[in-house]
């Protein structure tokens, strides 16, 4: 025997514990509810807080606790509790405590409006081991509530954030670039920089997802709030050319088109997601019936070891996809993926013109494309990226 430094610390986001053999599941995303106490204009998951049908169908705490136990057995280290607004659930603390007692880190995505003194104390005494992620919709009451369409939500958010701060609960704030909030980005960033634990600029939601549950009217509203490609590039360049350099590097690393392979983003032993009703998916947006596993008919282990690998192997036969996305060296940069094609078109592989336009604008800004050039016509994207980097 020998030993110095017997105990090794592992910080969140650091190198993986298992370089060669990973657990069957490393992260589980749980959408505890579709319901939300806000009614944000851009949000893809916000049924009304009192939606009876949704509430009746949601899994109860016992089902979630059982699932968390199965996840821990599979080696899962991190669970993300999201929604809708997860704090709407009266049993949130019960589910949270169970996750922590199983030795899971817990990521909480919230608007913070429902943080109570009791919850803040719980998060202080039994920390989630991940910063609570708080979405912020504006710096002024008028701006904020024009987004949330919920009177009183601005004051409630400030009160919730204060409770987290006063209890020393680590949190990070995230913005949303909307027509009404664009003029407040400088103010938001200055405010965020003064918060405890602030590191770097806050992240923003900008290329808003459409409803994966495919609601035409809400999707039209969300689409109307998205920036066009030029605006996206302009906003990304607000602080200089760092973002453009990252796009170039990303193209260099992502290895070009993936042919007919649909799920280039999914490693084995990665994450899985479960919606409020026990439907397991690779990610919360991926709701195509062929990619959804009903946990009422099987187990998490079966879903992870048998079902998800079959999904991962799915390939496209769509001609437009194969001729464009399958050959495109911007594939790693582009937001198109089966979940996005599903939300936009109800298929797994129809090219999404909006994201295609964004990716081309990014590549043009990075000097990787000529004006009017289509990325899938570039014969050797890797060589192009190397040459122009």
């Amino acid at each position, binding site marked *: *025997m020998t030993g110095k430094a017997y*105990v090794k610390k*592992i910080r969140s986001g650091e190198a993986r*514990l298992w370089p060669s053999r990973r657990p069957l599941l490393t992260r589980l995303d749980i959408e505890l509810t579709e319901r939300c106490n806000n009614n944000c204009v851009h949000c893809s998951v916000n049924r009304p807080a009192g939606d009876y049908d949704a509430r009746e169908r949601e899994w109860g705490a016992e089902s979630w606790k059982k699932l968390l136990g199965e996840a*821990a057995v599979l080696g899962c280290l991190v669970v993300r509790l999201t929604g809708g607004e997860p704090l709407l659930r009266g049993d949130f603390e019960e589910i949270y405590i169970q996750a922590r007692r199983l*030795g899971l880190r817990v990521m909480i995505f919230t608007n913070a409006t429902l943080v109570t003194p009791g919850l803040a104390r719980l998060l202080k005494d*039994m920390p989630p081991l991940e910063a609570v992620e708080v979405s912020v919709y504006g710096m002024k009451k008028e701006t904020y509530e024009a987004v949330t369409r919920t009177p009183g939500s601005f004051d409630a958010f400030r009160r919730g954030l204060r409770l987290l701060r006063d209890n020393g609960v680590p949190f990070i704030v995230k913005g949303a670039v909307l027509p009404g909030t664009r003029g407040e980005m400088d103010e938001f960033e200055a405010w965020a920089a003064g918060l405890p634990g602030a590191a770097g600029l806050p992240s923003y939601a900008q290329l808003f997802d459409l409803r994966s549950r495919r609601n035409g009217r809400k999707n039209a509203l969300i689409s109307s709030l998205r920036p066009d490609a030029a605006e996206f590039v302009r906003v990304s360049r607000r602080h200089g050319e760092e973002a453009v350099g990252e796009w170039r590097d990303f193209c260099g690393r992502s290895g070009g088109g993936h042919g007919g392979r649909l799920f280039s983003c999914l490693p084995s032993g990665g994450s899985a997601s479960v919606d409020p009703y026990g439907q397991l998916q690779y990610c919360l947006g991926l709701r195509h019936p062929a990619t959804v596993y009903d946990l009422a008919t099987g187990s998490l282990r079966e879903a992870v070891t048998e079902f998800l690998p079959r999904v991962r192997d799915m390939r496209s036969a769509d001609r437009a996809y194969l001729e464009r996305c399958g050959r495109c060296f911007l594939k790693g940069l582009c937001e198109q993926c089966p979940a996005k094609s599903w939300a936009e078109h109800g298929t797994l592989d129809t090219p999404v013109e909006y994201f295609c336009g964004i990716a081309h604008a990014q590549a043009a800004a990075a000097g990787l494309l000529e004006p009017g050039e289509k990325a899938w016509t570039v014969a050797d994207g890797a060589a192009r990226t190397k040459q122009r980097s």
Partner: protein
Amino acid sequence: MNDKIDLDKVYAPSEDVVVREIEGEVVIVPLVSGIGDVEDELFTLNETGRDIWKRVDGSKPLAAVVRELAEEYDAPAGLIEGDVVGLLEELLVRKMVVEKQ
């Protein structure tokens, strides 16, 4: 001899941590605040630490742990004792083990 770790005493994992074994790694997850230096840390043990940890279960004094390991590894008890005390020091300072009364 270390003045904090007593080989005649019995130590056990603290109830303030959750200990998990995942793919051969022992992962120690803080359950309450004040275990790590910051709040987003997990801990693992090196190979030596893992072998010792499995025996620090609240059932026997550390001296017995040293004897068991010396037998298993056919190594001098003094060498083993250094490792056992070294690990327990680290675990105790992080409040991951407690002394059983």
